[in-house]
Structures are given as structure tokens and as C-alpha cells.
């Protein structure tokens, strides 16, 4: 569905992505794990068109991706950015409606959002800036789904959230996937990320250093040592 080939990108003189290649299959969840500054967010920005890559290509359903973000969204890819980036001054409902900008009517999406996230319905008239961190993350995900994407990219969905809420979010991601949406997720929380993914990559310093099924990577000695705290148990029994 999505094929990344030799993608390169940089911030000024700092090379953020070096020869990234991978393929994402339709209907799967792929997790990209890695430490802070490994280039994960840059990768997502390049795919969605917020940052221009220096080289390589992003091919979506056999066609090279356009340059403008809004066209990428119209083609069915959305990004739920790191740190949520909700519109704090708009109400919860307005945030969701803006998420449905490319859709004819937001009504169906609103209904689905409120079914998935009853908390958001309670707070729909509230300014989004007043929500808690977990609620803001739910709003960001719900807003991303409003555009009826074929592929949803989630950048650090667990960032700054309490463990219980992280479990909720992971369950929601699985649910979204079961409804047929392909998921590309970037996470520092490797345990959770591998727990729900089909495929996974490990990124270090702008390179993909390991690739395979999530189950394989969860058993990999070096991955366990570097990202799973050396604790072998409990890698696949979550979510």
C-alpha cells in the first residue's frame, strides 16, 4: 500500500533520514520504534508532505506521492501529530468538524467519534485546550479518523500519558485497524508498540536497523536489551 524507497531528509546540515526503505501492507499495523531523535517524526512529516525529502520516494498505491499535504490527505492518508496539535481555542466539536474538512458532511464521523470516545461527546462544547492530556490524544485520533483515512499515521500516541490511558489508546488503535484502516505508528514505548503491531521496524540515527514481524522483534536479543528494558516477559500479552 505504501512503499518508501531510499528516503533521505535533513534539517539544515543534520541528516535526519538516511536511506529509509520499507513497505507497509494494507490492513496491517506497523510500528516504528526508536529513541528520541532517531528520525521517526521526520519520516512521518515527509510522508504527509509537511517536510520535503532530499531524495528517495514515497509511493502510495503504485503512484508517487504529491507534494502538498492537503492532497495527501485527500488521497486517504492522515497524520495524528506528536504532541497532538489540537486547536486549543476551538471546541471539541469544531476540532472534529475541521478534521472532516475533506468530507461532505461531518455527521457520520461525529457519531462514530462519539461512539468510540464517549468522553468527547460529554465535552463537545468545551474548548479543546481545557481537555486533559489523554482526552486531547483521543480527540487528535478521533479528528484524524474524521477524514475517513485508508492509512492513519500516529506519531507517539502514548507520549506523556498515564499507563492506564496508554492501554485505552492502544485498544482503540487495534479497533481502528480492525475496521480496515491501515496503521503506521511511531512509538518510544516499544513494549506497547510491538504488542499490537503486525510488522515493526527499529530506527536508530535516521536508519532502519531492524525490520520484521512484531513478534520476531519482540524476541530479538538486541531489541530487548535496547528498548524493552532487558525484561523478556510481557512483550506480546498487552492490548
Amino acid at each position: 500500500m505504501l512503499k518508501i524507497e531510499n528516503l533521505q531528509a535533513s534539517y539544515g546540515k543534520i541528516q535526519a533520514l538516511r536511506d529509509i526503505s520499507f513497505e507497509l501492507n494494507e490492513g496491517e499495523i506497523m510500528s516504528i520504534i526508536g529513541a528520541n531523535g532517531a528520525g521517526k517524526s521526520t519520516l512521518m512529516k515527509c510522508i504527509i508532505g509537511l517536510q520535503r525529502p532530499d531524495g528517495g520516494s514515497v509511493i502510495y498505491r503504485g503512484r508517487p506521492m504529491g507534494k502538498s499535504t492537503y492532497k495527501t490527505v485527500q488521497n486517504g492518508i492522515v497524520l495524528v501529530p506528536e504532541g497532538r496539535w489540537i486547536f486549543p481555542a476551538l471546541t471539541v466539536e469544531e476540532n472534529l468538524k475541521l478534521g472532516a474538512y475533506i468530507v461532505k458532511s461531518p455527521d457520520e464521523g461525529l457519531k462514530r467519534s462519539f461512539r468510540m470516545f464517549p468522553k468527547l461527546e460529554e465535552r463537545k462544547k468545551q474548548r479543546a485546550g481545557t481537555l486533559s492530556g489523554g482526552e486531547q490524544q483521543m480527540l487528535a485520533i478521533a479528528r484524524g479518523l474524521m477524514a475517513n483515512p485508508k492509512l492513519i499515521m500516529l506519531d507517539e500516541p502514548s507520549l506523556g500519558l498515564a499507563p492506564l490511558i496508554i492501554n485505552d489508546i492502544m485498544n482503540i488503535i487495534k479497533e481502528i485497524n480492525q475496521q480496515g484502516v491501515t496503521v503506521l505508528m511511531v512509538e518510544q514505548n516499544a513494549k506497547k508498540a510491538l504488542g499490537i503491531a503486525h510488522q515493526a521496524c527499529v530506527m536508530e540515527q535516521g536508519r532502519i536497523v531492524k525490520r520484521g514481524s512484531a513478534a520476531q522483534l519482540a524476541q530479538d536479543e538486541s531489541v530487548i536489551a535496547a528498548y524493552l528494558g532487558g525484561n523478556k516477559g510481557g512483550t506480546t500479552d498487552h492490548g
Partner: protein
Amino acid sequence: MFIQQLITGLSIGSVYALMAVGYSLIYSLLNFTNFAHSVCVMVGAYVSYFFLLLVADNILAAALCSLVVAGVLSAIIEKVAYQPLLDKNVNRIYLLIAGLGIQIVGENLVIVLLDGRFHAYPTTFSSIPIKLFGISIGLIDLIILGVSSLALVLVELLIRKTKTGLAIRGAASDLNTTALMGVPVRRLITIVFLLAGLLAGLAGSFTGLKYTAYPSIGSLTTKAFISAVFGGLGSIPGAVIGAFFLGVSETMIAAYVSSSLRDMFSFVLLVVVLVIRPTGLMGKATEEKA
């Protein structure tokens, strides 16, 4: 006497508001003050003058014509002057300088192509007073107040009730996030310049009707800028409130104190606001906007 002054003040305030909303709209999206705005006001004033001179003695039709021409001009300025700079992602100061350049070139172009004189609108309309409850009120002030208020209400409705308006409000918070929603942000910016230009054209037509058309008429936008700062740059209700406050205060000071103090009041107000409350009445601190 007081009521008359109040109506005059409100009518001036409503014209300031038309211009101030344009400043605020553009500032809220791009965080810079569009100094080329005054060119749109000036062009609006001249378009109405020529319309009345050459086409028909109908001030509303003339104002409509000004509105369209200035709107299109504003959008062209954005496409030609600002968009290439935005593409390069330059510091906002370059946009500011480009705007100043357009302002200077615009004014002088009129002097070169036409002349530097004052052109009173060739209409009988402006001098007709009407009697209302025994008070004599300039019909022109009532029309200006009425039409301007209507335009402001329409803009508010556009921003509050339509999808484009929602996108504009989102973009005021963050352009990149708005792009992630599938909004063609570039086109949205052009639409906002068009909107600001439409209001500037209307303001220009009304200012010309009141004070005649002349090359530096656009410098009245300074007052609108003060209004927008006073109300809080980037806030549209703030700009409107600031503009009406300034219009009424100026008129009252001119009537009851001294007309030579009128402009000083505006500039002192600007300084006081910047010292005491730089975000203005309803402005948002940048942290809140982000």
C-alpha cells in the same frame, strides 16, 4: 449635539473596523502586519470616485465596485509579493518590508499617473442631512454605519458558521495542523487576503465619500492598525470593539476638547496599550495561540 457626534463617531469607527478586521485576519494567520492594506483602501477610494464621475451617481454601486476591485488587488498582492516569500519560509520582517514597499509604490504611482490633488466625490448625496427626533444627522453617516455594520456581521457569520471560516479559525491557531486536516492552506491564505481587500475597498469608498480621494488616503489605516492593536491583534471581535472605541473617542475629543488633540489621543492610546497590555483587550498571548 451629543447624539449627532455619537453617530458620527460610530460611523467613523465602523470604517476603522472594516480596515482593522483586515489587519487582524491576516495577522492571525501569518503573524505579520500587512502594510499593503492601505493601498487597497486608496484604490477603493479612487474606484468609487471614478465610478461616480464616469458611470453613475450611485454611491452604493460605487462602493460595490470598490469592494470588488480592492479585493482582487489584495489577492494579487498576496500571490505576487507575499507568497514567494512565504514559500522561502523567510523571517516575517521581509513580508513587512515588502508590504511597506507596495504602500510607497502604490501611493506614488497614483501621483504620477493621476495627480496629488484632493478629489471630492461628484455626488449630491454627501451633504443631505435628515431630521430624526429633532436632531439633524448626516444621511451619509447613517449609510456608512449601516453598510459597514452589515459587512462586519457578514464576515463574522462567514467565520463562525461556514467550513471556510472554521478553517480560517484553525489556521489562526496553526497553519501546519490545518494543512493536516486536508485544508489547502495556500488557497486559504489567498481567500483571507481577498476578504481583507473587500473590506478595505469598502472602507476606501466610504472614506473617500467623507474626506475626498487623495493619494495618501490610505494612511488612515494607521488608525485602523491602532484599533486592531488596542483590541488585540489577531482577534476579530477585538478589532471591531477597538475600532468603534477609537472612532467615538476621537470624535468626542475633536468636538468637546480640541480637534488638534484628536490624532494625539490615538497615538498616545497605542503607546499606553503597548506598555500596559501589549496583547490588547482580547488578544491572545503567543503561547495560547500555539
